[in-house]
């Protein structure tokens, strides 16, 4: 079957031409491509971080802490519900409710058997407030046994809360790294408690980590000047107070603060860095939402002349004296900030607090210089490999080697076209995958050509030898390439970043090389044989 119908020829050549068209945008800059008319293909092969330089961070979200925080809050709430208030009577417990983090449960023992029913009712009312999780499942199960009431978080709820924390963390990270939403940063979830951040070009992962890893918990506290920090540390800390370190920029040292926050960071609506109004240094301007503004106004009205402290992640960043009531709903933090620190704190405040601390589990970054070197070396090596393989094929198979070369070039065009259409990412191992494909792509051709040689040796005419060669080589070509595809597929499933890039180019290369060897070589070789009908062929 060396004859092709016209439509088959059109389809085959068309495929290569289309692939070539799709490969074209890779040879122009992004700006030039953007200016092209709408119908032109614009999708490009992105360069991986190892080629263009950039940072990759894998962050772990401590979902266990989120769950424990929830349970701790619930325990406090349960305790509160057992106290008398208005018409509500007191329910006496044998001990404080016990929290068991291993089973996600809270256990309380009611002292008086007559109160058990009432206590259970209050707990049920409380835990129902959380709404439903998924298909009609309540977030907590309440079980009463004798005088013991056990509240257990449903596993579904645990999963849902974990997912919520992950989604919230991703949002916070996005707002911190890319506040304007105009950077090419990729932030996505991985598994149940991981976040992947890929920031091309940004070659300072330390700065990136600094802004990501801070929890960003902001709060405004009353300062207790009746106790000195040293006394407090010596053990005379009154209840409801805490000793908090002061930032180095503010002179260091310690302050005694009221534990309960007057206003918290979630009531801050906006924050920005600016030049200090009083000259010198930088400050952070912020404004509260309605609730925060009212609370802050009330507080500053009642405490004129006192110190108050602004605490960020457990550190006092500023502790000004309240001169006049602040009723406008906005204020400024006038610490001794360097410009970038002011900027960073403003971003932190604006982005809100993380639901749980993040741990950096894996960090990889490549400088742009090294990336550019890799691109150059990879391109050079590819061209040399291509040259060597072409020379080898020409020397070994002559005219048919030339056909195989044409098929190989068509194969490369197809690979670049497909990778562009997929908008995939080319990594350094990906380049190696392409080079390896160049070497292995000729395999199908070699199998076919060797078959043709054998058939010629058996005395077949060139045309029938070629026909038989193509058809007999097919099963070996199919089987052998499917096994390579299996390996590539496993790599795509299990591999990390760069390895997946390699697997992708290998897989695409295997498919296109089989196409180019079986279909394109046959088209070219067949056209020659049918047109010239040579008596003998050498290969």
């Amino acid at each position, binding site marked *: 079957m060396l004859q092709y119908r016209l439509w088959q020829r059109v389809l085959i050549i068309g495929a290569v031409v289309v692939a070539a068209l799709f490969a074209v945008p890779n040879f122009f800059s992004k700006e030039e491509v953007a200016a092209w008319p709408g119908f032109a293909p614009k999708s490009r092969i992105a360069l991986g971080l190892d080629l263009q330089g950039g940072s990759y961070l894998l962050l772990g979200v401590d979902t266990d802490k989120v769950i424990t925080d929830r349970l701790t809050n619930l325990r406090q709430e349960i305790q509160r519900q057992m106290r008398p208030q208005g018409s509500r009577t007191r329910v006496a417990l044998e001990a404080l409710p016990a929290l068991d983090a291993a089973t996600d449960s809270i256990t309380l023992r009611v002292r008086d058997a007559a109160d058990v029913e009432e206590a259970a009712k209050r707990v049920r009312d409380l835990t129902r407030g959380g709404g439903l999780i998924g298909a009609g499942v309540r977030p907590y199960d309440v079980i009463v046994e004798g005088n013991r009431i056990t509240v257990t978080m449903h596993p579904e709820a645990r999963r849902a809360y974990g997912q919520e924390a992950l989604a919230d963390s991703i949002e916070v990270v996005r707002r911190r790294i890319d506040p304007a939403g105009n950077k090419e940063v990729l932030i996505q979830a991985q598994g149940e408690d991981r976040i992947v951040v890929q920031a091309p070009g940004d070659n300072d992962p330390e700065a990136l980590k600094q802004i990501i890893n801070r929890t960003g918990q902001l709060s405004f506290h009353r300062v207790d000047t009746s106790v000195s920090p040293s006394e407090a540390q010596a053990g005379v800390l009154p209840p409801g107070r805490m000793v908090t370190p002061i930032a180095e920029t503010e002179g260091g040292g310690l302050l005694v603060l009221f534990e309960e926050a007057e206003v918290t960071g979630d009531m801050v609506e906006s924050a920005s860095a600016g030049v200090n109004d009083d000259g010198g240094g930088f400050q952070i301007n912020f404004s509260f939402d309605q609730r925060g503004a009212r609370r802050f106004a009330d507080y500053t009205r009642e405490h004129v002349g006192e110190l108050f402290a602004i605490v960020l992640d457990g550190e006092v960043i500023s502790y000004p004296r309240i001169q006049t009531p602040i009723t406008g709903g906005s204020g400024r933090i006038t610490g001794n900030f360097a410009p970038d620190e002011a900027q960073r704190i403003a971003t932190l405040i604006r982005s809100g607090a993380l639901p749980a601390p993040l741990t950096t589990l894996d960090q990889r970054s490549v400088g742009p*210089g090294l990336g550019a070197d890799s691109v150059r070396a990879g391109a050079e090596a590819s061209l040399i*490999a291509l040259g060597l393989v072409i020379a080898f094929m020409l020397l070994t198979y002559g005219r048919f080697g030339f056909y195989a070369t044409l098929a190989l070039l068509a194969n490369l065009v197809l690979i670049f076209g497909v990778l562009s259409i997929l908008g995939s990412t080319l990594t350094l191992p990906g380049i190696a995958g392409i080079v390896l494909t160049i070497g292995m792509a000729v395999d199908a051709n070699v199998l076919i050509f060797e078959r043709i040689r054998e058939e010629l040796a058996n005395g077949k005419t060139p045309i029938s030898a070629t026909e038989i060669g193509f058809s007999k080589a097919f099963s070996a070509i199919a089987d052998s390439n499917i096994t390579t595809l299996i390996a590539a597929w496993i790599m795509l499933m299990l*591999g990390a970043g760069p390895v997946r890039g390699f697997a992708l180019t290998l897989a695409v290369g295997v498919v296109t090389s089989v196409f180019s060897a079986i279909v394109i070589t046959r088209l070219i070789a067949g056209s020659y044989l049918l047109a010239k009908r040579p008596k003998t062929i050498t290969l």
Partner: protein
Amino acid sequence: MKLLKLIPDKTAIPFTKYRWHALVITLVAFFASLFAIFIAPGLNYGVDFRGGITLELTDRQPVDIPAVRNAISALGVEATVQQFGAPEKVKIVTGIVAAEEGEDADAAQQIVVGRIEQAMRDTLGSDVVFDRREVVSPTVSGELVQRGIWAVVLASAGMMAYIWFRYQLQWGAGAVLGVVHDTVITIGLVALFQFSFDLNVIAAILTVIGYSVNDTVVVYDRIRENLRKYKKMDLAELIDLSLNETLTRTVVTGGTSILALAALVLFGGEVLRGFCFAIMFGIIVGTYSSLFVAAPFLLLTGVKRDWAKVKVGETAKA
């Protein structure tokens, strides 16, 4: 035009006759590799599997390596410091850094890399450029090891299943025996040359497995075809015939693949060298295993002789 002939048209190398010699070579290479991997010199684990920190930096002038070493040991961190490529370039490698009191082991790596970078700026000046940072926590390195092992196991199982489906169980077993052989010896060579054993090497091994099975399948395909053609021929003779018939293809494809890889090894830059070396070695090893492990294995187990009713492309039933 006179064409290059690497292999004469008709060869009659009695491959199976050498199978016992080959077995000795195979076993020696196999156990030598196990020795290289587990005893000496041992695998040079890369940061992916070992965890810890790898830092590559470039300065304007040649780097004073003893000063770098002192600055790092002043931090209480154990690290190897080497010149890397050029005198202006240095590579700093640490294992998992021990966490301090109250510190999380995963977080400790991150804290230490920050300290090392600061120390380098203090020692070498602020214009030092960090070309590459890799900081892998113990949690992740453990997972990567697991994933790597799974990848190799699943790939082998997948290919064996495919060959079983297309041929017979013992053919699949023969191919997998070849795969085990190739994997162990390739890792052995990586250990011997002290290339960094990392995720890239796992990718290299998977590629080698793919190539080796590819090679084996071409040979098997020809053996099956000849089983149909010569119903009475002695199996050893038939395997020899098939190996000889496909020998040119084996050499030419192996040759072009190695040519392409050699270009990468020589001109592809430092980063990929170990990776490409591993694939290149693996292809040689994989070619050997198709000829001397996977094919002779069929002699040992015997094969179904009557393939007459099975058409090309149909499933073979054992």
